[in-house]
């Protein structure tokens, strides 16, 4: 169906030259294949139960800046991240960065996840300089999720302690 409408629209428009040089296509051409892949087939989109004690939620960015990332991690008793989910309001690079971030944190321990740097994400996705802030936000999202988890664990420990004392 796309082909039919494309051919129809090709009638007066596509007369001379086979190349399309609109800014949109140039922007698309600047996107690396990996970014497009993560964008088309994002991994781990969704939500975990944010009230669960072993789930850490990181929400970073601002709508006014055009980038908001929510990253959630589920950690088991051994301190290993078993599941991660993300949701992003942002451009293709932001979606790809957060998708990659969830892929990378899965199976890592908390300390290992803290070591993930925005430069690694940017290098993996071949982000151009103008999009580096997306990878920085992804790193912030990971850190925010981990610190939220740690806070929850601390609260849990205090609760257990007060519960133990009151007994």
């Amino acid at each position, binding site marked *: *169906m*796309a*082909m*039919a*409408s*494309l*051919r*129809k*629209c*090709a*009638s*007066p*428009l*596509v*007369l*001379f030259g*086979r*190349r*399309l040089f*609109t*800014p*949109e*296509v140039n*922007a*698309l*051409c600047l*996107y690396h*294949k990996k970014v*497009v892949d993560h*964008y088309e087939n*994002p991994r781990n*989109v969704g*939500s975990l139960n944010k009230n669960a004690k072993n789930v850490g939620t990181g*929400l*970073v*960015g*601002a*709508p*006014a*800046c*055009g*980038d*908001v*990332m*929510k990253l959630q991690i589920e950690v088991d008793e051994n301190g290993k991240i078993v599941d991660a989910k993300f*949701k*992003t*309001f*942002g*451009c*293709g*690079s*932001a*979606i790809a960065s957060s998708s990659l971030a969830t892929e990378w944190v899965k199976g890592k321990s908390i300390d290992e996840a803290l070591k993930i740097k925005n430069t690694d994400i940017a290098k993996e996705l071949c982000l151009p300089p*103008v*999009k580096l*802030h997306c990878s*920085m*936000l992804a790193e912030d999202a990971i850190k*925010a999720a981990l610190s939220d988890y740690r806070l929850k664990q601390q609260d849990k420990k205090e609760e257990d302690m007060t519960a133990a004392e009151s007994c």
Partner: protein
Amino acid sequence: MLKVTAGSDVAVSGRSVITAARGSAYETKTSRSVALLIRLRTVRLPVTASAAPGASLCFSVVLCVPGGLPGQTGSRFSGFLSVFSGSQRRCLPRAGAPRAACSGRWSGFMCGWEPRREPPHPANPRDAVEAGELRPLYMDFQATTPMDPRVLDAMLPYQVNFYGNPHSRTHAYGWESEGAMERARKQQVADLIAADPREIIFTSGATESNNMAIKGVARFYRAKKRHVITTQTEHKCVLDSCRVLEAEGFDVTYLPVQKNGLVDLELLERSIRPDTSLVSVMAVNNEIGVKQPIKEIGRLCRSKGVFFHTDAAQAVGKIPLNVTASNIDLMSISGHKIYGPKGVGALYVRRRPRVRLEPLQNGGGQERGLRSGTVPTPLAVGLGAACLIAQQEMQYDHHRVSMLANRLVQKIMLELPDVVMNGDPEQRYPGCVNLSFAYVEGESLLMALKDVALSSGSACTSASLEPSYVLRAIGADEDLAHSSIRFGIGRFTTEEEVDYTAEKCIQQVTRLREMSPLWEMVQEGINLKSINWTQH
């Protein structure tokens, strides 16, 4: 309707253009389907029956590249350029030459095409585009427009045959080029806006026209008048010219606009000072499509004795403009926004009462000394042809574009909640639709709509991280400014394209909203404005 009957064969003497084809008989359904055969020598040609009637956009343009220099017996260019719609592409050989021998300068270029087979849809759109297989639907008519083939037909003789410099006074080459240029100036450009042909200056585009108008007028009257007024939603070239004037010591007032994008007339009246030389307000905004009250502003400026300049690049040929009725003193026209060639434009400069301006480009004194430099005859002829066609088809195009725009907007708004149209819903040019899809970022939506060529006011599409200044000026929320998409509909847009765009848009916005944390929060009933966001 153009009816071309079989057997009508018009011989050409000298260098005239004919519009009948021998051996072909077909009726076109719309007034916009034209078949032209241009011959520049007395050569009779067999023309095979051409394109299918009935298709709403079907037309065929058959061009003959003319023969060589005087004195040469044979034709230097022995091939014909043949362009057909859809997948019918045939090359018509010169009379007497064997069919297959479509030789000549153009042979490698156009002749010998085969109908395209349907290519498999590749995974990466970039590969597909580079392979030349997949091209998006064009819905960005505010950025530029494809050249109308009739304009190309008008221009081509002046590229290769009538190539004289129009300012050469001493020989026929100059005279014929000058004639064409003046014809374009008079019949076409001037008539479109009800101006005198002596008031039209050909330039290289609306940017140059804007620069000339603003800087030229301000500098000429700088002795007594040091104030210029413009709006915050103007095109960058106007704003940047004003910035240069500020650096030269002028005072510039950038008027804010209301929420609907329109200028407040009372505020404008209050801003006009005794030392104001120029007010510049664009007729139709290129981002949100809003139509400013040009007549009222013109009347106000005339009553105060201030020159009124309007950047009508998006308005000329699309809405009726009359420089006398609207009291416009200067107007910028752009070629490539009205299905004309790129690289040409015009500036209308009123003669009565006379508007003086300091030229930006000095030289041989062409164009009344206001814009020196050889006027590019083919481009001027192209602009003239584009204006003529626009004048003839304005009503039809406007009606059609409104219908398509309404169709698009209604389809989208019916299916999707939380969609905002930026700009006044009534005072607008219908072909420019700017919609903000809440909770979805503009650039990601553009990426999702990869087989439609669109534009966005989002930051990510610009070099900086700032969203469009026009959307900010109309007071759009920052996050909505990041979520805006501009749909441009024009003369060649079809209903199927609009339907496809609308459906794809609905699909992709739904998908992206599923991926959006903001949408999730809103569904849970959280007020986004109450959240303390982490800033970088």
